[in-house]
């Protein structure tokens, strides 16, 4: 694995009014790495992830993705975002479009692919997430797990260099979690660079190349899954993990 930073975050701070949510985050993600971010509710995991594609504007610090400093006003954010895939807890499929159109619309409007090319790529990706036969269905006709797989295909259709997952399985019924995690695992196996906020400790333990534990807006501890999940050094990490494992 070459060491080329895809995402490089320096001294990232974010406040919402008086609420100082991120307090100086430094984080680098190398190409091909799968970084899982864990931590208690409200610790700033989503905010951190949303700063990586500038859905939240950092109050302070820099976010460099693929060599472009996104906090620099000269950077073309739309072009940068097209290379960063994002998957949301609530899927956020476009409800007025068919599954295939969901996967094709940004390819055509942003990447300017022809509709034939976009559909060809769209169909390949739907097949890959196991939803070929659903291409003309509408999101409301799909289960949560199916919707989330379409959302993943939609993001992949842009040929992203890095994928961000914000609790992609938290809104799913327990029996549907596996199908989404399997798709994510497949992506990781193929070498996709991924930043994954998750409560699925099993996924973090088995798939992550690195686990980052956050609390109170700072990175408390990071390292291999074996280090962070199985023999945490910090008391706060231990407390969080024992709490999670009880549930």
């Amino acid at each position, binding site marked *: 694995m070459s060491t080329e930073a895809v995402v490089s975050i320096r001294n990232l701070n974010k406040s919402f009014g008086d609420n100082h949510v991120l307090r100086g985050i430094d984080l680098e993600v190398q190409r091909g790495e799968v970084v899982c971010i864990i931590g208690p509710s409200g610790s700033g995991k989503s905010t951190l992830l949303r700063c990586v594609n500038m*859905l939240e504007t950092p109050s302070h610090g820099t976010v460099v993705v693929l060599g472009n400093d996104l906090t620099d006003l000269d950077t073309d954010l*739309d072009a940068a975002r097209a290379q960063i895939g*994002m998957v949301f807890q609530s899927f956020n499929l*476009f409800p007025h479009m068919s599954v295939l159109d969901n996967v094709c619309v940004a390819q055509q409007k942003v990447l300017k692919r022809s509709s034939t090319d976009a559909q060809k790529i769209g169909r390949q990706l739907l097949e890959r997430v196991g939803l070929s036969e659903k291409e003309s269905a509408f999101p409301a006709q799909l289960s949560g797990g199916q919707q989330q797989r379409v*959302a993943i295909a939609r993001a992949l259709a842009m040929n992203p260099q890095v994928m961000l997952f914000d609790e992609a399985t938290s809104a799913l019924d327990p029996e549907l979690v596996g199908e989404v995690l399997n798709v994510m695992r497949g992506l990781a196996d193929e070498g996709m660079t991924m930043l994954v906020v998750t409560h699925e400790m099993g996924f973090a333990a088995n798939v992550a190349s690195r686990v980052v534990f956050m609390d109170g807006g700072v990175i408390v501890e990071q390292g291999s899954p074996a280090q962070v999940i199985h023999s945490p050094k910090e008391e706060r990490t231990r407390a969080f993990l024992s709490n999670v494992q009880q549930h």
Partner: protein
Amino acid sequence: MAISKRKRAQYIRFGVYALSIALVVAVVLIVDWSRLQGAMFRWDLVKKQFPGLLTTAARNTIIFTILGFAGGLALGLFLALLRLSRARAYRWFAATYIEIFRGIPLVVTLLILGFGIPIAFQWQWPNPYLRGAVPLALVAAAYMAETIRAGIQAVPQGQMEAARSLGMSYSRAMATVIIPQAMRIIIPPLTNEFVLLIKDTSLISILGVTEGTIDLARYGRNGVFDSANSTPLIVAGLAYLVMTLPLTQLVAYMERRQKASGR
């Protein structure tokens, strides 16, 4: 003597029904129907309204309505987007516009734009249809802007975020993701707005009319002056109903359907 609440409600309902029926019967008996028909619904005069009612009056009412609606919709959409803009000055401009045009009666706006401005600037409206439809559109835009803004805001925030995270610009996301979804919510109230506009076009004739631009209401009034009989107005009123009733029924249908589909 205690009487249960439900029984009392039943008695009251029965009383109201009985009273209503008595009232209808009284009206039917008291009114001199042939005289009423003679003053308000004479067949020969009904026939005399045609074909001018259709070929000129109704046609002009529809032209004014469509011009006013199309202009109002375009400007209303623009104002709604300004209202939702991040720039405070834009929001302020749109809010001020909306307050001004909703706060002034249409008649006053019509007179100012139809007479006041042309006199002040030594200028003439290039077209009598525009002279009536532009003020109508300016006022309609203020109402539509609020409707459209509410519709856009009803689309979940996550939709914009998903579109932006795919690399769409703000305006691209608005056009392909947000506004099509907002439309579902907006169409019933906009149809109501259309119905209001149909009726509001009846005010345009205070600017004066030519033979060619006469609208339904003025056509009816002129008919009354000519015949010294109310029949032409009744016919005009019925013509309005023919246009508005299907639309209000359509709105009711759309609202029932949206309720059923849970949105």
